[in-house]
């Protein structure tokens, strides 16, 4: 590709050069060129006219995004616009110090790369013929993507850094409802007669686990209702388990017999269920679904109606 380097040295249209330098936009249209030729090249153009020209030119630039037919190259400290031979363009020198250089200085600076440096209406224009021209970062087609990529990486890093300080990961409620939605912990315990028991045996059934102790008056009050519930739902896939917290099997069994409790009584001597369920007191009742997932947790004694309501929907779910 045969390209033409055109450097426009302007010392009187600072508005344009600033804009062009910051936005890296290039002037392309003949109409713009004509306006520049007609007005800017006049050394005596006054400030209001230059401002008006600047506004008109800005409009053109805004409507005309950078086309892909030209490239920018740096030679020494001079920036060139490389364009097709027949596509005459104007470019900016970004360095203020060079705005005042003469044609000879340009010729010296760019050496053999410029075939000619012309004085056009008080503006130095360096013209050279080169083959192609190495693309710079800004002129590369991937430049825009690189900029976007850097911006996205920056945003991602900022998100990674700041998000944890504002996000809350600890929305779990305290107490026995805190494990809702999680698998119930399974511990190997013994029942009140010393036989090993485990929740694993109850998979496929809804389990109502009631944590209790013999010294706890509300537990005593609640026990008959639990037995009533066990009787009522025995054939509907619901199992009631009473887990004694921290007492010996003798005390637990004596207590259960005194109340004619027939559902299984487990002995949790080390109070493991009480701790893992976050029991705030006794009694505590936790309901597990057929897969062993905690679905409800209650702190304190329940009435029989509350018990029924808690298991009603689960008893019909297969």
């Amino acid at each position, binding site marked *: 590709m045969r390209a033409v380097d055109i450097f426009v040295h302007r010392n009187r249209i600072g508005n344009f050069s600033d804009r062009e330098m910051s936005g890296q936009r290039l002037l392309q249209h003949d109409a713009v060129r004509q306006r520049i030729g007609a007005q800017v090249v006049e050394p005596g153009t006054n400030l209001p006219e230059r401002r008006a020209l600047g506004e008109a030119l800005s409009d053109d630039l805004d409507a005309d995004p950078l086309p892909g037919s030209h490239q920018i*190259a*740096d*030679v*020494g*400290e001079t920036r*060139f616009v490389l364009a097709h031979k027949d596509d005459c363009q104007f470019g900016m020198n*970004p360095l203020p110090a060079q705005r005042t250089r003469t044609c000879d200085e340009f010729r010296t600076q760019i050496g053999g*790369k410029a075939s000619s440096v012309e004085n056009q209406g008080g503006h130095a224009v360096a013209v050279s013929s*080169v083959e192609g*021209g*190495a*693309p*710079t*970062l800004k002129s590369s087609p991937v430049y825009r993507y690189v900029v976007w990529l*850097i911006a996205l*990486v*920056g945003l991602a*890093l*900022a998100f*990674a*850094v*700041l998000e*944890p*300080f*504002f*996000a*809350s*990961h*600890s*929305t*779990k409620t305290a107490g026995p409802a*805190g*494990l809702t939605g999680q698998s119930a912990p399974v511990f190997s315990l013994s029942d009140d007669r010393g036989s090993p028991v485990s929740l694993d045996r109850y998979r496929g059934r809804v389990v109502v686990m009631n*944590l209790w*102790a*013999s*010294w*706890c008056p509300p537990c005593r009050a609640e026990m008959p209702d639990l037995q009533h519930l066990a009787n009522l739902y025995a054939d509907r896939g619901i199992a009631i388990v009473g887990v004694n*917290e*921290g*007492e*010996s099997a*003798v*005390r637990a069994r004596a207590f259960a017999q005194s109340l004619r409790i027939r559902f299984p009584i487990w002995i949790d*001597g*080390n*109070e*493991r269920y*009480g*701790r*893992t369920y*976050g*029991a*705030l*007191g*006794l009694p505590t009742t936790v309901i597990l679904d057929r897969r062993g997932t905690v679905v409800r947790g209650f702190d304190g004694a329940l009435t029989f109606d509350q018990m029924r309501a808690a298991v009603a929907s689960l008893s019909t779910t297969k």
Partner: protein
Amino acid sequence: MIGFVTAALLVVVAVVVEIALPGRDVYHAGWYNVGLIAVVGVILVTGRKRFRKARTVRARLAMIVVILGAAASGVAGAASGLLGADNQTVVGAPGQRVPIETLGVLAFPLAGVESSVPAGVSLERPFHTPMQIGVHSLDAGNFILNALPRDVAYVEARDAHGNRLTVTQPMGAVFLSPVLLMQHRQTIAGLDLPYDSFNVPAARRVVKAVLFTPAQAAMVLRGQARFREAAVLFAVDDENDRLLPHAIALSAGGRSVFVGGLMLRGTVESYPAVEIFSAPNLAVTAIGALLVLAGTIALLSQLLSRDDRPDVA
């Protein structure tokens, strides 16, 4: 150029130190973080000037990389210092799940005398697999967690017939737990000792338990050479907090003592607490450090080779 690169490396080093040596109060000091941000600001300003003067695309790319890396590291460090929570130590009971704001849930295991499974606190976070917290630092994004072994007491209470009784801790981290976390301190005979208390509701007793290390037990019980093991001093009150007569006894080496109508046994165990330090995001800091290093190497290689030729032949 040297100053620009040095400032970027300084930022990276300052932030990496926060991860390598976590928990220093200075990381949360205002002047430290303002200084960090100021250095990043200087890098951005000087980098902009250098960028304009750079003659090659390679040099400009390298500068962008250095600036981006330093900014990432600096922001990570300052965010941790200014927005991160103060250092804290979480003492959890076995089986307890402690939610930590902006971090997740610390699950304290059932362990020690109750289980053969080694004690290891795990961190549970949404969309992450649970992580075990060890003695060595564990980075959890914007936090560094350390397991800190500390002494706790496992207690058993029985009645005169040997029947086990429920132990509760109305004032403790967990209501139902036979493990005393010993978070309070008391001076006895010039010794600063940890203590805790528990209730035995079935016997209507309130028990205070003071923990002695073997050396402390030997010092207090002069002449009783057999006390060369950790001990728990029990003081039994009634339900109205009145000390019962002859209701103070020492349970050493896990042996039971009968006091205040109760058979009490205390076993001293080691159980982990968790130290939590806020720290710069490890991934962001690592990426920032790598970017700064890569950009620095590219810039230095250009300087050394004096490759300042322009991109146009």
